[in-house]
């Protein structure tokens, strides 16, 4: 069914991607139905039901998907920047005319529906970056290129931060895959890992320990490379930067992060332990998933979700419902579906000859993966609680539409 043409792309729509997509949205709908169906309600279908609304979102998404498959793919490359700018424009509009939902000032209300432009902005940014990198410039020549690329990311991040939606801002870190693939030094991954480690040490114990750690490492390097003056200077600079990072992390943590975010990080790290307080959500989420066992409690029999112990059970914490009602087999299925989806996108991207499509693929693979990573990581207590949806599964129109557009544009681009 899938013929891989040496010139890149395929002469058929990639059916596997479409199947992954359909599987995920179906699971989402089934789970939302389980958590929100009320047998006492008068109307089975009513726009006040989460599942009815999700059904509408899915219907519209499928229409959007078909339309995308029908439209010529060339437009995206052509329209990449305009789309990106339009998204930024919407985000700025939100700053002035938006409404606040659960702490984030990130929504535009149109009638009964609220739209979150941030979701679409991820798509716009992925397009813009693909366009930017695909314009034939050999990046190594121009130092400014990297700076410009970073700016494409930083612009939406900046606006999102103003909207107090730190979670969504974090998702833009996902372009790290794209950057790495294009040729950014591998150190970027190492630096990322080291930064996170230092950040955690600073918060978990004390900045003294973080400073002690890097000082030890620095002295080690100093002794190892004491003959090589060039390396010594470079090490000294890195050492200085690390110290600055710790200072920034400490200040940033105490000054920049909002108290509920600090609380969530503290909770995850076990700095505070108050089952009824800050880590209530995390606890209930773990209990929901943990109580699922091998095969779960059965469809619509999850007590944690049905009885509302888990907060936001059909949006950010929807994975709890799956874990509770379908057990480890359910969790495994979800993980494998996401793994399959992301790896398929990456694999198809690798085969593209058109760098625009390839880079776009890397961009959206990163976005899908980061959402999966952060969302599931938080529900099982490996990451702080950051409110972002599980792609294609969580309830919500904006998110579903945005991911549908993201994926089907790729399917279309792949078919050329």
């Amino acid at each position, binding site marked *: 069914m899938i013929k891989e043409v040496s010139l890149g792309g395929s002469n058929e729509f990639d059916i596997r991607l479409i199947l992954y997509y359909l599987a995920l949205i179906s699971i989402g709908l089934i789970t939302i139905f389980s958590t929100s169906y009320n047998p006492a309600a008068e109307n089975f279908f009513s726009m006040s039901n989460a599942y009815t609304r999700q059904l509408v979102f899915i219907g519209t998404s499928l229409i959007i998907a078909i339309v995308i498959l029908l439209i010529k793919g060339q437009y995206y490359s052509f329209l990449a920047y305009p789309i990106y700018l339009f998204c930024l424009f919407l985000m700025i509009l939100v700053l002035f005319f938006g409404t606040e939902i659960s702490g984030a000032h990130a929504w535009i209300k149109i009638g009964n529906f609220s739209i979150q432009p941030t979701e679409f902005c991820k798509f716009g940014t992925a397009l813009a970056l693909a366009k930017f990198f695909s314009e034939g410039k050999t990046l190594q020549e121009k130092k400014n290129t990297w700076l410009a690329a970073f700016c494409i990311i930083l612009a939406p991040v900046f606006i999102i931060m103003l909207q107090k939606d730190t979670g969504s801002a974090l998702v833009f870190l996902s372009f790290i*895959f794209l950057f*790495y*693939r294009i040729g950014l030094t*591998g150190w970027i*991954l190492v630096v990322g890992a080291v930064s996170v480690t230092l950040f955690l040490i600073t918060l978990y114990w004390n900045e003294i320990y973080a400073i002690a750690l890097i000082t030890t490492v620095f002295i080690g390097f100093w002794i190892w490379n004491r003959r090589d003056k060039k390396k010594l200077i470079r090490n000294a600079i890195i050492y200085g930067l690390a110290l600055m990072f710790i200072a920034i992390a400490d200040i940033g943590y105490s000054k920049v992060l909002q108290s509920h975010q600090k609380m969530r990080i503290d909770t995850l790290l076990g700095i505070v332990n108050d*089952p*009824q307080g800050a880590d209530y959500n995390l606890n*209930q989420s*773990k*209990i*929901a*998933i*943990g*109580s*699922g*066992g*091998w095969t779960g409690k059965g469809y619509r029999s999850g*007590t*944690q979700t049905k*009885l*509302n*112990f888990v907060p936001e059970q059909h949006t950010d914490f929807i994975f709890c419902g799956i*874990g*509770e009602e379908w*057990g*480890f087999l359910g*969790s*495994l299925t979800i*993980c494998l579906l*996401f*793994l399959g989806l*992301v*790896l398929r996108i*990456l694999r198809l991207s*690798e085969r593209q000859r058109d760098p625009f499509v390839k880079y776009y693929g890397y961009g959206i693979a990163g976005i899908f*993966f980061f959402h999966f*990573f952060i969302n*599931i*990581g938080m529900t*099982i*207590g*490996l990451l702080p609680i950051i409110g972002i949806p599980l792609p294609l599964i969580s309830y919500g129109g904006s998110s579903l539409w945005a991911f549908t557009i993201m994926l089907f544009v790729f399917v279309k681009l792949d078919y050329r």
Partner: protein
Amino acid sequence: MDIRYRIIVFIILIVTLVFLVRLFHLQVLDPSYGERAEKNALRSIVEHPARGLIYDRNDSLLVYNDAAYDLMVVPGEMRAFDTADLCRILNISQQELMKRIEKARKYSKQSPSLVAQQMSKSDYGYLQEKLYKFPGFFVQNRTLRHYPKPIAAHILGYVGEVDEKILEENNYYQLGDYIGISGIEKAYEQELRGTKGKRIVFVDVHSRVIGSYKNGEEDELSVQGQSLWSTLDGALQEYGEKLMHNKRGSIVAIEPATGEILCIVSMPTYDPNLLVGSARSKNYNALTQDLNRRPLFNRALQAMYPPGSTFKLASALIALEEEVITPRTIYSCGGGYNMGSHTVKCHPHAGNPDLIYAITTSCNTYFCRSFYNTLSNRKRYKNIQEAYQAWKDHINALGFGVKFDSDLPYETRGIIPSVEYFDKLHRKSWHANSIISMSIGQGEAAVTPIQMANFVAIIANKGFYYKPHVIKAIDTKDTPNDRYPEKVDCHFDKKHFDAILEGMEQAVLIGTGRIAQIPGIKVLGKTGTAQNPHGKDHSVFVSIAPKEDPKIVVFCLVENGGFGATVAAPIASLITEFYLNREVKRKDLEKRIISMSTL
């Protein structure tokens, strides 16, 4: 394939693998989450059974139950709520509320504890509507004791919340549960409390009950407490308390053939309704602090009195059994019993009495002489110690100086001194005259009203008794209480009692107890005047009626009432009349006694 592609794929695979390992651990390896989910969603609601009712011997209710509502909290499920609002509903201060919650938290985070008890129905209705605002709180339906008539407080006893000691010892009880603390409530706690049931329900995050768990398969129904039928005659009890109005002392009436207590009055008493519900601790303290009246003190079981002249009957019985006298033995009474240095005076009466006449006139000399002869019988006992021990064994066999250990709360043993006591007191050199006052019910001996009443029952039965008790039947009226079925033999020859009974009959007919006569009923009786070193003597009377087939024996003691004939005899007589005839014809006497005050 590009190496960087591979590295990215590798990272994604690693992350997914870490997640799967974590998920496997959470879901499959660690069972604690399943338990915690159940703890979250399932609430075991204790169904408190209604406590058993208590009827009197004529099926009138003595104790029944009233509905009450308690507010409970599960501290572990509490979340921030409007404390001021809850305080307003409960009508308590914020500090008080915090204190109670803290106490509950200390007891257990996951089990329910009591926050406020016995809310009124209207408070309950109001709170029920607002309950969703107070997660972790719920209302439990309870029953409270209620007494249709304020009688028999001491013997019925009361229930109260279990204390920490009971909680530790007995895991049936939970904080906030009730337990019988005294009286019948305590003695028959097992029967009265029934069996708690439980209902397992699903609750949501706001602690609202959503539905039953497994369609109620694992629910356990509560079993109602068993009802009790008391031996008490409620009307008689009420009448006795009325007669004892403004007096101190007690009345004990027993059906001799069964040991069933017909009424047991201790005055001053209190209204048992005072010790119910949330007002209990306040009222209880007030009652404890009433040092003048001491209403909580159960005189019928706990007060020790010098037995007085009625004890002469026991003296006589022992002398007969020890064969130192016969009913025809005559002792001369020259106005007293002369011991040389000291004389036990006797009141004026005709000449030289035989036993029956001695009882009739309550002659001190006669009983001192017979007591002396009993203890000085060196043919039988080689020294005073052995002789006294034999006398004491007889006395103990008659129920003095021992506890009955029946269903009566907090009995006192009384005092019948031991051989060792007198050895120590008199440095081993003592003789019958050293303790001669024992024979006439003065001196060291001390007895309780219930012991005296039982002794009279022994006389009526001619030598045996059933332990005095207050519960006749358990569960249904036809299932007798099998705790005290045994007949206790006192080891006295039956024939000895004839003279005693004869003397008692004469005492009422022509002797000191004439006031106890009841038209149409042959009453036997004996007056007593217990010397009271602290004030006016106690008035004592014992009676048996009717002579042919004794149905009721009465012991009555009125503190500071003077001679036995003054108060105690009329009261005992009225009680007898009321019990046997169900009405009292001697209205003047009744009126005079009720209005009499000895306080």
